[in-house]
């Protein structure tokens, strides 16, 4: 290497940034060349001057604190703005709406399932009472015989009405279980049809309005007077069954 090439490398050499091979070559050259050696001495002299720590500008006191505070503020406002961002609020409303709809859907489904379950129960009880030839535990057309019969068998006293005048003679009464609750079953006749009127204490979920449904060919009407829940099941047509309900409620 000649002096010109070495002069180009002595800065990197001086900064210890040269690779081993080049470092060796420069070292060898410097040992033989007083002029280039002087140049490195001058670089060292300059470095000595620049090594003076006073050359660095001291950070103004308070700058660190100012920045720390600004950073903290920005973090806080960032956290706040995310909640006040229009998109975030819109997202919030959307999530709330979805949750609300979800709640209603679940509620509706569970009510519907309860309802379904109840209808099945009522119909099944009605069918069983006819099949097993076990229509009545107490066979009497006298409401004053039927009503006391329930005393001590149920934890409530069902109202017993005779609707003979409306064409629905009372035939008797029976113990039954509806929806897991003991219930009074009052049996009425209509020509050759039988009607089972189930009576049990109302729970909060009982609908006050009349609901009429058909299940497996049987008509079912449910209603509640606030204290008791009623469900009447029969193979009578819906119009006549409604007539029964109306007469029962009026009397």
């Amino acid at each position, binding site marked *: 290497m000649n*002096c*010109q090439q070495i*002069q*180009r490398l002595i*800065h*990197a050499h001086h*900064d210890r*940034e040269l690779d081993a091979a080049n470092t060796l070559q420069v070292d060898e050259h410097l040992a033989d060349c007083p*002029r280039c050696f*002087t*140049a490195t001495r*001058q*670089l060292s*002299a*300059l*470095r000595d*001057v*620049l*090594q*003076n720590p*006073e*050359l*660095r*500008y*001291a*950070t*103004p006191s308070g*700058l*660190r604190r*100012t*920045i*720390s505070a*600004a*950073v*903290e503020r*920005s*973090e806080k406002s960032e956290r706040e703005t995310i909640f006040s961002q229009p998109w975030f609020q819109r997202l919030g409303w959307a999530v709330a709406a979805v949750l609300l709809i979800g709640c209603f859907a679940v509620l509706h489904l569970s009510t519907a399932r309860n309802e379904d379950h109840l209808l099945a129960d009522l119909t099944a009880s009605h069918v069983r009472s006819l099949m097993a030839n076990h229509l009545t535990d107490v066979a009497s057309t006298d409401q004053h015989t039927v009503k006391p019969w329930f005393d001590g068998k149920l934890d409530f006293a069902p109202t017993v009405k005779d609707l003979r005048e409306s064409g629905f003679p009372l035939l008797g009464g029976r113990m039954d279980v509806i929806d897991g609750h003991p219930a009074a079953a009052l049996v009425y006749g209509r020509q050759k049809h039988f009607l089972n009127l189930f009576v049990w204490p109302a729970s909060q979920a009982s609908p006050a309005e009349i609901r009429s449904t058909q299940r497996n060919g049987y008509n079912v009407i449910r209603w509640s007077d606030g204290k008791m829940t009623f469900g009447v099941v029969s193979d009578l047509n819906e119009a006549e069954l409604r007539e029964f309900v109306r007469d029962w409620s009026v009397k």
Partner: protein
Amino acid sequence: MPNASANFDQTILPHLEAAYNLARWLIGNERDAEDVTQEACMRAFKFFSGFRGGDARAWLLTIVRRTAWTWLRSNRRHEEAVEFDEELHGGEDHSANPEASLMRAGDVEVVRQAIAALPAVFREALVLRELEGCSYKEIADIAGVPVGTVMSRLTRARRQLQTALSIQPQSGGPS
């Protein structure tokens, strides 16, 4: 992101002195250098979540340098405001005046003036190397130039300083 600011305090702010020093040397006055440093730190905080560890000082200095150059460009009262043309400034001896020989290298103010007189790209390379002790590679990353460019900028910066501070290279050198 709980405690992002505390984490930032511990990771980044220890390098605040290096950041301010670089900003101060590039900007040229205390007040604007403070503003630039603060702005750079806020920018660093904004992108802190994207910082994947590594050399926090080099990362902060990169942001400081970019912020400082943006500031210089939008405040065009400095000659450095124009992107430096190395061919134009290459090898120029800014301090070839009679006073130069009167400068005493031991005087901190004199040395500071000599450094301040360097073109900004020479100055930033020199400050990063001599005052902050960065490697060529680090300087190359911070300034976004190849290592070879760092080498030539440092060489020119030192020659100018030697002239200004009357640490004359022996005549007969290629310069």
